[in-house]
């Protein structure tokens, strides 16, 4: 039994997809739809414009609340508050690591739940919703007690561990949304053609659910970056970005916070744009 047909299946799955545009259609409805979408996108960015603007503000006091005047000083000294920069780096690190691990755990669960009904799948279903419902302040304290019982020092590890715990459910649900309606016969075809289940998984199943995984990763990353209360309890004296900002804001709001936030946005935007251009090139060639 050869696997001659298998490459064809894999190719079909990995082939660049034709752009999804809908032919014809009612022009007005289409236009309205695009305008609505554009407005929502604008809505998402309204505070961002303010944040970017205020990164150029020149307050005389420590609070960056009212517009005083334009200056490039803040951009000249973006790392003026080392604690802020360190906290940001730490949070990015924690978000990346915890997301990576939670992705594996959560995706596996999602696939298992969709692919076949097995005994206990409803129970697992329900169970996965629970972490989403638990209020952070009590869970944070309970987790801290747990870590203390294990004799773990509160710090980087405990933060990552705690983040993974609440990310799993988010990831599982997002990947699931992608997988409903998945054509499992593709897997059959692949295995009929001689591929091992593992190869099938990596070459056929996974590529098709990648958008779900990417979306889940993005959500999980954003969640981790923003988490305050649970992180507060389990962090010991380690300071993450939200912890720093929440604490600092009571005493001062240096424009450097805006500067760093804008910098992240700009860098991400550049990366995104580069990625898009690259894909265009690939398709054209």
């Amino acid at each position: 039994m050869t696997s001659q047909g298998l490459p064809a299946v894999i190719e079909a799955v990995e082939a660049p997809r034709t752009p999804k545009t809908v032919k014809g259609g009612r022009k007005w409805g289409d236009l309205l739809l695009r305008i609505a979408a554009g407005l929502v996108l604008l809505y998402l960015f309204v505070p961002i414009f303010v944040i970017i603007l205020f990164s150029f503000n020149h307050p005389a006091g420590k609070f960056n609340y009212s517009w005083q005047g334009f200056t490039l000083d803040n951009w000249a000294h973006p790392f003026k508050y080392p604690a802020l920069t360190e906290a940001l780096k730490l949070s990015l690190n924690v978000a990346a690591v915890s997301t990576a691990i939670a992705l594996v755990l959560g995706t596996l669960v999602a696939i298992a739940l969709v692919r076949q009904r097995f005994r206990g799948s409803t129970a697992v279903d329900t169970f996965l919703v629970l972490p989403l419902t638990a209020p952070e302040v009590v869970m944070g304290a309970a987790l801290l007690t747990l870590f203390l019982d294990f004799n773990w020092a509160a710090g980087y590890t405990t933060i990552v561990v705690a983040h993974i715990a609440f990310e799993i459910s988010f990831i599982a649900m997002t990947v699931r949304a992608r997988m409903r309606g998945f054509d499992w016969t593709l897997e059959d075809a692949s295995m009929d053609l001689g591929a091992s289940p593992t190869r099938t998984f990596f070459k056929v199943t996974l590529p098709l659910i990648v958008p779900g995984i990417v979306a889940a990763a993005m959500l999980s990353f954003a969640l981790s970056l923003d988490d305050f209360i649970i992180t507060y309890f389990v962090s010991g004296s380690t300071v993450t970005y939200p912890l720093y900002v929440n604490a600092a804001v009571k005493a001062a709001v240096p424009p450097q916070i805006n500067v760093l936030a804008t910098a992240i946005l700009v860098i991400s935007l550049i990366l995104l744009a580069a990625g898009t251009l690259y894909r265009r090139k690939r398709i054209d060639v």
Partner: protein
Amino acid sequence: MAGAATSNRQRSKFAPYLMILPALAYLGIFFVVPFFSLARTSLSSSGGSVFLPTLTFSWEFGNYFDAFSHFRDQIIRSFSYALVATLVCLLLAFPLAYVIAFKAGRYKNLILGLVILPFFVTFLIRTIAWKTILADDGWVVSALNAIGLLPSEGRLLSTSWAVIGGLIYNWIIFMILPLYVSLEKIDPRLLEASKDLYSTAPRSFRKVILPLAMPGVLAGSMLVFIPASGDFINADYLGSTQTTMIGNVIQKQFLVVKDYPAAAALSLVLMSIILVGVLLYTRALGTEDLV
């Protein structure tokens, strides 16, 4: 690929158990154990020192009754806010997710990235920015007042609408992304076919798109509604004395009043109500599974 073709292949009996094992084991330790201690606390009575109370487990169901009766207003309010926020998120997210999925072509990933970017700026900074925009004397509020859209209070901040607005803004990506991933896998030829079949766009939407997008709707609504009900930080910054949510109460009971059994009981009440709501919702939507 269209349709939900299920496999007839005899699958390994153990595969699913193996796949769920890592996540379950992980959550078993880092969620279930703390959760049990929470449940235990909720049924205890506290005594002894104020700051390091000894909790004696005594099947103190009274804690639950107290939670319900003292804080019924906040419970109802939290769920109302969360419900409104979820609905609005759905309404706003759908057009955007749809356009990205079907009309964005090669800019799909770029726009998706744009959508998530604002959420890499922390909550507090976004909220401060909104407070700047919606300040009582700012031009947004003044304009609205001139038109007469604002009720007697004449302000947007420190109202329930500000809190709901905060909930919407901060949780909307959890609606956009799941909607997008579930829309994106719909074959566009289906849409064309449905347009031929159904003469009007709304019908084609109701009969074809919506059912196919249902997994995304389900996931999105849960990922918004659940955290929003337990939220406290939006009410803290954007709310007034009349808009406290159950999350704020739990926070206060736990940190300031230090009534740990009460805080725990309230938490469990919150969790149970959400769970029941979610189960009913899923049943109503007609999908057998939650996740």
